[in-house]
């Protein structure tokens, strides 16, 4: 046996009993940076409270062997009201499918010891083995308490770490190993009063067997069971969205407790913290730099100037910086298609490969530059602390529409893509807030609408480039206003979305310099998510659409014999014209062409003909597929993009059967309004289905948006005609 084999043989024997660790802590304490440093895994780091929604796991090498490290969403307390918040509780106690952690690594902010230690006290009451990683030491400076003294007070090891430089990581690993060898004890820093004691005993008796420490730890820990009972009593109130066993819910709801009893646990913990922590902290951490910056960035005049400035830079750069890269990607795929066509010769398979497959991949890839850029900005703003201020500045406006202040970030992300934006709604506590945001995020001008607008503006809207640019900005404003208005209307008319009074507490973290590697990692994470979750659907639908527009290949008997005509064509020009006519005939005869004809009566009041109808059918797969569909429809090739001059010319020159111009500027406007409002993205619907856990909301979303789009386009087109345009 070789040495290699020996090494491999040892690994599986340990894998079964691999230690399970949980990394917990408040938001904005550098928890994710620490997670990355400990595991080397690729995970998002952020400065915005609650953005770490996904639970991530990585592997950590301890002196005693390999361990699994589970990263929890940042939280201030284990008290929960929603399933999302319950994730942290479940992970600490090993319920809800989570493994029981052998130890918990708690991040504590050196500048805010007492606040971060609150979570530690809760974990200790539950009987968890804890190790504290003290972060943000640079920021706290001389206010940083002595780790040894703090550890003695808290009753667990405290290791100062600087994740950026790796300082303290080895000590932390060793401390985790030491903690793993300790016995579990439930440490309570406060004593329940007699009335509360009676309540706790009653609720503890109702704990289902799997919830007890006897079942979870293997040996009973009365204090741990009490802590679970206290958690249930505090969190279950009939208005919560927690997943708890019915007997426990019944027992906890049955206890009517007065306010003093209710507040006892929280006040008891703070009483202890306020007594023990201040003597260890020499002075307050200096936050004057953040306060000075806030004086400007949150100022009533300069604050908004800065806000508008930042947002303008973001969106202008999306237009002007991404364009050359997008052109390059597009040219690359065209070149590839051309080479393949030459190499393989004509045929159904070549058409599939070039028009269906490569065209579809190109349609996905072309968005990457914009998404990368947007998330570069978002990541930067998030990490420096400005994004939380955006929610602060915008709350007044968002609240008027009954949206949560935190909905601004998902809605802003909606400008790039609704798919990650809808996933970002998880940062909100209540299901009602999340769903309302999900229902309006798809109205935001996502990057998939850009090629459509670019094509329509370029082809149909006359005027100088500056006016065309202004129209594009106008479409962005229109979408934002529509989304806000839709939220307002829905929060008043749709029962499950009715407004409830919600506390708006958002931490405004200190301003920090973003770490470029963290920003780039986040940027790549979001982009690869787009490729995986939206890209694959776009590709599949692109291919399906190609097939829909390609088959059947048999033209009607009445059709001219194009092959013979082309073979005997007198010149190349005639040949090309005939080839184009042949493609058009094939298209009109295809399944897609037939559907397009079938829906023409429905869309002609909006100014659209059957060709646009085919494009709209294709756009149901993903909006930008509209462009490549029109490319096929107008025989300029499936690889035609929104900048394609032949496609733009084809649209400008298109004639109706009566010889009139098919697409006037008014039709262009009507079409843009339609695309702004219609729900035409399977990826979005799929994500909404996943996030809401059913078909009800995706169907509602699809229906209301499409009806809204039809009515709005109808008003624009018919109104415009009455006024004498187009």
């Amino acid at each position, binding site marked *: 046996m070789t040495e290699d084999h020996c090494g491999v043989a040892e690994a599986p024997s340990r894998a079964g009993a691999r230690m399970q660790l949980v990394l917990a802590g408040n938001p904005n304490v550098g928890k994710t940076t620490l997670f990355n440093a400990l595991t080397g895994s690729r995970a998002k780091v952020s400065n915005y409270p609650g953005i770490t929604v996904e639970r991530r796991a990585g592997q950590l090498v301890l002196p005693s062997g390999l361990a699994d490290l589970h990263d929890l969403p940042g939280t201030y307390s284990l*008290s929960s009201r929603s399933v999302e918040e319950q994730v942290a509780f479940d992970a600490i106690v090993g319920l809800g499918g989570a493994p029981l952690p052998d130890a918990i690594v708690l991040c504590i902010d050196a500048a805010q010891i007492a606040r971060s230690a609150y979570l530690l006290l809760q974990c200790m009451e539950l009987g968890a083995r804890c190790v504290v990683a003290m972060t943000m030491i640079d920021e706290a400076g001389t206010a940083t308490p002595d780790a040894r003294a703090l550890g003695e007070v808290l009753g667990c090891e405290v290791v100062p770490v600087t994740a950026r430089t790796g300082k303290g990581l080895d000590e932390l690993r060793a401390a985790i190993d030491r903690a793993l060898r300790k016995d579990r004890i439930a440490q309570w820093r406060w004593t329940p009063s007699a009335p509360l004691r009676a309540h706790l005993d009653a609720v503890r008796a109702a704990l289902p067997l799997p919830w007890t420490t006897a079942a979870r730890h293997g040996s009973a820990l009365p204090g741990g069971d009490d802590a679970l009972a206290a958690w249930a009593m505090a969190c279950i109130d009939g208005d919560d969205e927690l997943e708890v066993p019915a007997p426990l819910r019944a027992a906890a709801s049955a206890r009517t407790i007065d306010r003093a009893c209710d*507040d006892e646990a*929280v*006040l008891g913990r703070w009483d202890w913290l306020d007594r023990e922590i201040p003597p260890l902290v020499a002075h307050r*951490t200096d936050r004057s730099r953040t306060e000075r910056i806030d004086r400007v960035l949150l100022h009533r005049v300069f604050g908004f100037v800065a806000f508008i400035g930042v947002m303008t830079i973001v969106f202008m750069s999306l237009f002007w910086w991404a364009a050359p890269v997008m052109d390059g990607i597009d040219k690359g795929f065209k070149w590839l298609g051309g080479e393949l066509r030459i190499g393989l010769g004509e045929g159904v398979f070549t058409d599939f490969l070039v028009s269906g497959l490569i065209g579809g991949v190109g349609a996905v890839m072309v968005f990457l530059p914009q998404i990368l850029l947007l998330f570069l900005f978002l990541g930067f703003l998030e990490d420096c602390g400005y994004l939380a201020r955006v929610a*602060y500045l915008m*709350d007044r406006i968002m609240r008027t529409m009954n949206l949560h202040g935190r909905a601004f970030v998902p809605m802003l992300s909606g400008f790039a893509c609704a798919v990650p934006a809808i996933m970002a709604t998880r940062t909100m506590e209540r299901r009602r807030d999340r769903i309302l945001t999900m229902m309006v995020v798809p109205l935001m001008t996502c990057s998939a609408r850009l090629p459509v607008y670019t094509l329509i503006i370029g082809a149909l809207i006359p005027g100088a480039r500056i006016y065309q640019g202004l129209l594009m900005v106008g479409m962005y404003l229109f979408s934002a206003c529509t989304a806000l208005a839709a939220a307002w209307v829905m929060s008043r008319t749709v029962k499950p979305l009715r407004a409830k009074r919600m*506390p708006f*507490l958002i*931490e405004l973290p200190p301003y920090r310099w973003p770490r470029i590697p963290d920003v780039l990692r986040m940027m790549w994470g979001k982009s690869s998510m787009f490729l995986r979750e939206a890209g694959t659907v776009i590709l599949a639908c692109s291919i399906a659409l190609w097939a829909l527009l390609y088959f059947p290949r048999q033209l009607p008997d009445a059709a001219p014999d194009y092959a013979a005509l082309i073979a005997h064509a007198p010149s190349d020009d005639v040949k090309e014209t005939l080839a184009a006519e042949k493609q058009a005939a094939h298209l009109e005869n295809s399944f897609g062409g037939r559907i397009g004809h079938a829906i023409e009566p429905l869309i002609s009041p909006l100014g659209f003909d059957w060709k646009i109808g085919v494009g709209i059918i294709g756009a149901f797969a993903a909006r930008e597929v509209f462009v490549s569909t029109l490319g096929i429809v107008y025989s300029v090739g499936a690889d035609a993009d929104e900048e394609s001059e032949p496609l733009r010319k084809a649209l400008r020159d298109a004639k109706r059967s009566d010889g009139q111009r098919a697409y006037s500027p008014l039709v262009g406007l009507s079409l843009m309004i339609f695309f702004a409002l219609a729900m035409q993205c399977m990826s979005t619907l799929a994500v909404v289905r996943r996030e809401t856990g059913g078909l009800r909301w995706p169907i509602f979303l699809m229906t209301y948006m499409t009806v809204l789009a039809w009515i709005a386009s109808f008003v624009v087109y018919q109104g415009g005609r009455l006024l004498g345009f187009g």
Partner: protein
Amino acid sequence: MTLADIPLGRPATVRAVDGGRAFRRRLLEMGLVPGTEVRVITIAPLGDPLQIEVRGGQWSMRRSEASQIVVDGHGEPVRSTSLRVLR
């Protein structure tokens, strides 16, 4: 007196937190327990929410929520002198 009535920058001491059960627990858990010093640092440009400071941390809180926090006002406004001209 509630936190919503305290002049900008003037420190105040929390006396009690009112409001719904979940809201109250949330505020208590973030450390707004009776006896804690709080301060309104800025008011958002549109007049609401407020930026408040508790235990060295800064939070955004709506005026309606701040009015649920009963406080005792005391002392002189504590403010950095630089950039005061902007207000």
